[in-house]
């Protein structure tokens, strides 16, 4: 199990954080830490979510996140990408 970070650019409106964390809960993955902030473009926010999981879990989570219509980009940061 490796610690990994998912960096998301998402729409900045109410309910988006709920969708993201709901997806983690639904797929039974734990969030170890989470930061959210607005970007220079007030329509977008950036989220960084730290979790633990093997490469299969990392791939599954990033693919599930990309399906959300409030998620613009998904970047996976782990031992091999950092």
């Amino acid at each position, binding site marked *: 199990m490796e610690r990994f970070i998912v960096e998301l650019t998402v729409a900045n409106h109410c309910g988006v954080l709920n969708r993201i964390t709901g997806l983690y809960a639904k797929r039974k993955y734990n969030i170890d830490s989470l930061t959210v902030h607005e970007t220079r473009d007030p329509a977008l926010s950036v989220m960084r979510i730290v979790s633990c999981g093997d490469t*299969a879990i990392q791939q599954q989570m990033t693919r*599930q996140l990309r399906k*959300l219509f409030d998620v613009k980009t998904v970047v996976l940061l782990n031992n091999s990408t950092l």
Partner: protein
Amino acid sequence: MKKSGAAIVIDALCRNGADTVFGYPGGAVLPIYDELYKNAHRINHVLCAHEQNAAHAADGFARVSGKPGVVIATSGPGATNLVTGIANAYLDSVPLVAITGNVAVPLLGRDSFQEVDITGITQEIVKHNFAVSDIKDLNGILDAAFQIASSGRPGPVLVDIPKSIQTDMCDESEYTSQELFFNSLPEVDLSETLRLIESAERPLIYSGGGVVSSGASDELLALAKRISAPVTFSMMGLTALPANEPLNLGMCGMHGTASSAKMFTECDLIIALGVRFSDRATGNTAKYKEGKKIIHVDIDHAEINKNTAADVELCGEVKAVLQQLLQKLPRIAHPEWEKACAKAKKLDFHPVSDQLNPVNLLKTVASYCTPDTVIATDVGQHQMWTMQYFPFQTPRTLLTSGGLGTMGFGLGAAIGGCIANDRKPTVLFTGDGSFGMCLQELATAVSQNLPLTIVIFNNGVLGMVRQWQTMFYDKHYSHTTLNRKTDFAALARAFGAKGKKITRLVELERALFNPPADTPLVLDCQLDMDEFVLPMIPPGGSVSDLITQRN
């Protein structure tokens, strides 16, 4: 010109091709229903008896027509009654647009009368949902809802519209468009796929709902013939090839055919098309892959490697991927493998008798159907027997609850499917348990004058659970013996339908010979409570654990 929110809803429905909608009125959707009243010439609203069944009807309509089904419900209990129907559509990737009313904007968040947070409640069972907070967004949201529901991997979308927004007025010049981020698909590279297919000696195709929803039956058959690959189906994919096609092995998995289990054991390559390797289709996933390579084609990138690791992943619409593949793939004959397929199919032989039993019941009804007859089922033993014995001929003729396994799905779905199929004769196979969960919807089948033949597999028990209790719980029949005294034929008559109790096969023949053209017909077929669905792979087992006979 300014339009009300309710008028914007009606125009958006028409613009998106929704000429038929299902629903149930209530306080928080009164403005929308007022517009439906004025626009009856443009939109046919089918009034159901219960919102859950209305959602199943919209689901059945979508499965038959290929267009998004639309269901409308009021706030609070109207909205929560949709939940099972939405979850059902989500698990089976059915395009559905659910429109709910909510209390007026100033009353939101105050636990007002009939207020629930339906976007919160449905968040994990929709492809996307919207809570409209400004009338300027309404038009764009509705267009986006239809686009999301029907594009990519289809699914349900819910739009929650407060009553005050339905009555607000807005000019077209003020409309906003929704900024949504659609996921782009990765490039398809066929080189590794071609190499794997060319080196395989015993290829097997595992075909699913993605083949039906993308209309890829021709491509599927072409691929199967090109490489001598028999085809086995998930339940969602079963109608993609005609039952009498020599390479069609029928359904795989827990209650799949013996032939599909046999060929699965022996194959060295699985070409998985528009499937998600559900536990009901694969059994024990650790043993599933032993000695086999897997090529997985699916439009949903997250389905690939989710349940079973693929050796090659092709992310894209099944039809488009197969068309590309067929352009490059040479004919690779495996005559021995085709012979093995023909031999394995003999395992699926069913002895003939004149008893009223599940096989005969299904074969008799089938003999009165045409290739395009829409067949709906509920959930349980009768559903599995339908998959095993009904000779499906045409894609989109099977309406069944695959992923969610929703008892009570069938009658609503049959109503929606019948209406989508130009109100042609439609059949529902159900059980006495499942039918008990939705039978108030008979009222709708009667008010709509639908030629539904409802065949109840009446064994007085919850047969599938009883079967498990027999096999795995020492015959402890805990709460599966119904002890009801329901007279389904009399019940049908009470609803204004026709009904008949069937105890012998010849009575079934007589009843089916001349069914009423504009009234539902309920056939209450008396069956033995200890019929088993076989073959069966026990839960968590693999094909090597297949049970074919009762001991």
